[in-house]
């Protein structure tokens, strides 16, 4: 074990942030989902940063390299923070769009999935392209006989 910044306080902070974030994430309101995402990303950023070694600011000439905090997780987290901002803006725009279309920002159940559920209940299949219309009904049935069906017509 070479030194990391991990300590009890950081573990508690990570756990509480992620736990609260997950609770919010499981909501249906997009605003709450978004707040959950922000809490979770704060927690995970802390997790990453505390994986490295704490110390002085990582600026050469100011801090002795031996006493510097680990720069690699900092660079990772820095991009993560900004990406979270982009993500936040995007989810906010979706909330707005959802409100604009439906009057609220709740995530409804997916309609297509509902349809598949109904289909399963009615014992249907999804593909209707095949086998529904016998080829005899084809308007241009010149070049394509249907062997399986023609057989029933008897011998010649």
């Amino acid at each position, binding site marked *: *074990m*070479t030194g990391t910044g*991990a300590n009890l*306080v950081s*573990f508690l*902070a990570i*756990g*509480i*942030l992620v736990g609260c974030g*997950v*609770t*919010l*994430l499981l909501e249906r309101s997009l*605003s709450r*989902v978004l707040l959950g995402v*922000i*809490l979770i990303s704060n927690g995970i950023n802390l*997790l990453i*940063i*505390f994986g*490295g070694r*704490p*110390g*002085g*600011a990582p600026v*050469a000439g100011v801090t002795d390299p031996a006493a*510097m905090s680990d*720069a690699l997780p900092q*660079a990772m*987290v820095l*991009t993560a923070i*900004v*990406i*979270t901002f*982009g993500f936040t*803006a*995007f989810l906010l725009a979706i909330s*707005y769009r959802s*409100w604009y279309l*439906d009057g*609220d920002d*709740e995530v409804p*159940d*997916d*309609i297509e*999935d509902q349809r598949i*559920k109904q289909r399963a209940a009615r*014992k*249907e299949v999804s593909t209707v392209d095949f*086998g529904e219309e016998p*080829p005899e009904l084809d308007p*241009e049935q*010149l070049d*394509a*006989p249907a062997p399986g069906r*023609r*057989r029933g017509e*008897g*011998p*010649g």
Partner: protein
Amino acid sequence: MLVLLTLHLTAAIVAPLLVRRWGPRACYPLALAPAAAFGWALVRTPDVAHGGAVVETYPWISQLGLDLALRMTTLSWLMTLLVGGVGAVVLVYSARYLPADAVGTAQYAAVMVGFAGAMLGLVLADDLLLLYVCWELTTVLSYLLIGHSAERRSARWAAGQALILTTLGGLAMLVGFIMLGHHAGTYRWSEIAARPLPEGTYLVVAVLLILLGALSKSALLPFTSWLPVAMAAPTPVSAYLHAAAMVKAGVYLLGLFAPVLAGVAPWRPVVLVAGLATMVIGGWAALRQHDLKLLLAYGTVSQLGLLAVTIGVGTADAALAGVAMLAAHALFKATLFLVVGVIDHGAGTRDLRKLSGLGRAAPVLAGVAVLAAASMAGVPPLLGFVAKEAVFAAFTDRPVVLAVLVVGTVLTVAYSLRFLWGAFGSRPGIAPTRLGRIPPTMLLPPAGLALVGLAAGLAAGPVDHLLRPYAESFGPVHAHLAIWSGLNLALGLSVLVLAGGAVVFWLRRPLAPALARVRAPVTGQQGYEWVTHRFDRVAVDVTSVTQRGSLPQYLGLILLVLAAVPGGVLLYIQPWQYPIALWLTPAQPVVLVVISVAALLAVGARRRMTAMLLVGMTGYGTAMFFVLYGAPDLALTQFLVETVTIAVFVLVLRRLPKRFSVRPLWSSRWLRRGIGAIVGLTVAGLAVAAATARHARSISEDFPQLAVEQGHGRNVVNVTLVDIRAWDTLGELSVLVVAATGVASLVFQRSRTGPRPRRLDVDRGEVLAGRPVWLRGGATLHERNRSLVLEVVTRLIFHTAVLFSFYLLFSGHNAPGGGFSGGLVASLALTMRYLAGGRYELAEAAPVNAGTVLGAGLAVAVGGALASMFAGGEALESAKIDFWLPLVGDFYLVTSLFFDVGVYLVVIGLALDVLRSLGAEVDRNIESSGGRPGVLAVERGRGRRR
């Protein structure tokens, strides 16, 4: 050989151009490609005539040990002749068969030539993987050819069925190939054949898998169903794919492997049972068809069964008979298909109940058909007779097989007669069919093929000589191909078969009820439909169980898996047994309390604004942790981002209802909190594990030195971003650009690049003369929405803030700061302008398109990366440029600064897009709609507005 393959590929590529210029006549020049293959094989005949091989090898994917290994022996020589010769003939025929104005001719011609090339590759490949690639190429191209009339359901259905069944077999075959190749350590068949075979179950499984491929490709039982359905293809396609080329691929595979694998336990039973059953059932089915093409299709099925038996049985005499039969079948069956094409083309039908008197109307065509059908029935002196004699002679020592072969051949004779009678006979009560003039380019191809069949039969001696080397690979050959081989059992059987076939044909009326009744209890067609239907049902059932459509359910499941799997591992390794420090500094617990209280309150908050502010507080708390940890860059960025986030949130929250809606999930709140607690615990445990997991030296310990020496900067974090890990940052910039564009496209209903409101297309009358103007856009706001203090403060600090952002940008290489924090400060300055002065003020402050800023940022970043490449370094490598400036003195510039400028611009572009979308555009929307949501939600929206 590679030249030939390239020639086919080139022809396929230029085919659409030629067709556009010449229409279907472009098939004439395209026929040169397969004709060249035919000619080449003819020229190289001496090389293979005595059992030699023509070998060419080109390196291809050396990492996989995969070479373009091509090898022509007698069997592949014969196949090349057939594939090239029949291919050229069919293309010539197509030129007149296809209507001049038909759509899809370009695709047809290209795919046809491409198919000929793929088929050529298949028969010439020595490397099994190359063979497999060509095999699947023919599958895909045949899919396109069968589905040529894509507007017809039957054609799509037929194409899909052929694709699914042959791919199924092909994949199984691939596994078999890999098993053989893996064991031998090479994929060259010529080398595998020379090495000892694997033993036991391994070999049995490999052989069965390979047989699966051969059976499916050659439409042998139980995969017969796709071939009759594939008659939906244009007739020339059927003549080529379903007579001469593709269906022969399975037989070719049997012929290629039989010398080595025929002795393996499952080979003979599988091949003999499948082949014989297919032969009899196919022949029986052919007798009841009314459609001439279907009659031929079932005839082909039957003959493929015969070919599989003779070539697959693995004796030298049978092999000789088998390859002769292979050639004979390709010649007569292609001829007959082309004859049917002529009839269909001229008469508009192929139904033998509607045709009458064609024999008299088209005597030459009838003559060609008689020649080919006689070869099929085994009438001397045609090649079909010679081959069939040899087949009978080769199986005299297997009486059961021979008996079934005789039955199958009787049926063959009967349906050959039925074909001739159906196509050319006269039926009382039906008007004579008019055929019109047959174009010579449609008559010559079938005539030529039929005559070759006659010539080859007469020249049985030389043919025997040419084909003998293949049979010799099985052992000594006793049989001879000949028209007259003396009075023996085979001759007697030939006479018997011809007579029997005539009798069966003669008895067609009494036999009719039996033909109608006696059939397989389940047709392949029904079986295929049943299987695919079951698959669809299972897919729907599984989907309906797993895809419930509820986002919380999906997320909950994913998170529970996170808790269960890594959490379970945590319980096992118990990382908490190491000593853990309580805290880093005493200030940490204070921050922890603030964060915890804020996060827990945020979970329960009922008002959006409250929840948002509480979450923001955890963000600031996180920033405090960064400060205490020793990460000033992070803390700076986190503070700035948190502030911008809150501002953007407020912009959206003014539209959304103040409180969260009455929650349908209220009842499950404890479940959600439970999941939250478990996941929180798991992640905390992961943090403990991560903290105690390091045993090796971190690579980042070299970063400070690298930053100074190679990145020419002292701020290690910044140098990491713009130099050491610059590719990551470039990826991140792309994400930001995408997010910004996404935000804009979600909010803007019109184009976002249209002219923005520049200042005063509004009434200026309200601006009182003499009253100081702090912000020009301020006058456009309603008096109630204005805040003079804010305007003054903004006016005072805007430029300072922008200057500060420049400072952060330029000094970031050596001190905390950089493109990200600089851009965020500039974004905050813009946000203030917008908040104080409204959307007109925003347009004043940044009179450029957000998209332009984003694009410029990305371009500068990428340009900087490329610049260092042009300067001789690697992409994104930093270089230091020293120069002297007046007043400043010695000065240096690091090229990665350009990259940071790109970052700076992208961040500003993102903020600008967000402000424009969620700010200005939403403002406009409020003004024009009076604060209502869209039309769909007007009813619900009204209820919530106050």
